[in-house]
């Protein structure tokens, strides 16, 4: 095409004067940093706090039954899983790898697959551990009183059923639809390379 220079002339006529200046840019960076940091750090801190409390309880409340010990162990493991996955995602938020577009699309495809794995495996494992842990943990406290035992287990079972059968499938359905669309788009772009 002989008119590439014409196109370049048109291209460079774009108005870039309204872009933020360096001072405004630095303000935007500071604002972005604090808001993102606060959100993610709060999540990591909450996960660490929750796990810490679970561990502290083990030392404060000396349980006598094996079921309680197993329950505590299950919930602590689930807590560590929560901390680990959140710290991992915190790292991804700040590190920008020097990827070419092709490598980046491959990386995004991998990220989407990891998210599906998280939903199908990690989340199920974590939630299973918490559910089993909770059911085992409360036994020691209520096993002496039949009515209290029935009430506590009925309430806990109802709570866990709502999480397993209502909240999780709903969240998964929403995520799966989004992830499916994203993976299809990534595959379409990766074919262009």
């Amino acid at each position, binding site marked *: 095409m002989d008119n590439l220079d014409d196109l370049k002339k048109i291209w460079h006529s774009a108005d870039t004067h309204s872009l933020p200046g360096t001072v405004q840019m630095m303000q935007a960076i500071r604002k972005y940093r604090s808001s993102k940091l606060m959100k993610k750090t709060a999540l990591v801190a909450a996960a660490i706090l929750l796990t810490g409390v679970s561990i502290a309880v083990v030392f404060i409340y000396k349980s006598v039954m094996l079921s309680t010990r197993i329950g505590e162990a299950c919930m602590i493991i689930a807590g560590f899983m929560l901390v680990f996955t959140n710290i991992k995602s915190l790292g991804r938020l700040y590190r920008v790898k020097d990827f*070419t577009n092709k490598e980046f699309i491959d990386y995004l495809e991998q990220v989407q697959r990891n998210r599906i794995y998280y939903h199908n495996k990690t989340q199920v494992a974590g939630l299973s551990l918490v559910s089993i842990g909770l059911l085992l943990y409360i036994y020691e406290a209520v096993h002496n009183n039949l009515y209290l035992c029935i009430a506590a287990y009925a309430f806990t079972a109802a709570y866990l059923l709502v999480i397993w059968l209502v909240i999780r499938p709903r969240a998964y359905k929403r995520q799966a639809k989004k992830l499916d669309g994203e993976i299809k788009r990534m595959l379409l772009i990766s074919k262009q390379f």
Partner: protein
Amino acid sequence: MDFEAIYLQYSPQVFRVCMGYINDYEHARDLTQETFIAVWQNLASFRNESNISTWIFRIATNNCLRALERSKKQPTGELPFHLPAPQEETIEEKLQFLYNCISELEETERIIISLVLEDLPQAEIAGIVGMSHANIRVKIHRIKEKLAIKFKDHGQFR
């Protein structure tokens, strides 16, 4: 090179590339900002393994590739194959027509032509996109042909 100097030098280029890809002024501004936030966050770890411009354009174009994933905003609709020749267009109208033509290209083609129009060497474009130099050369040739047809139909070129 300090961040402010980098920002002043590259932000107009990054904005034009984002605009070429996304064809939406506000979104392009946001993408430019996101690019420089990432540049600022990672400048200390940049190890000069590639040119700083290659690094910045990689971040910018990768942001663009992910941007459509986040917002479902699609580029403008199909342009009619034969458009009536305009009387006399302003430079802004010509620029919008160029953006519209680019937005009809595939994602990688949009990135490649935007970098070509920014006068980046083909070897550097290959390093940003992740294709071989020969492949980039062929792609550029095809994109130019596609754009030339659209512009000639629109009566832009002599």
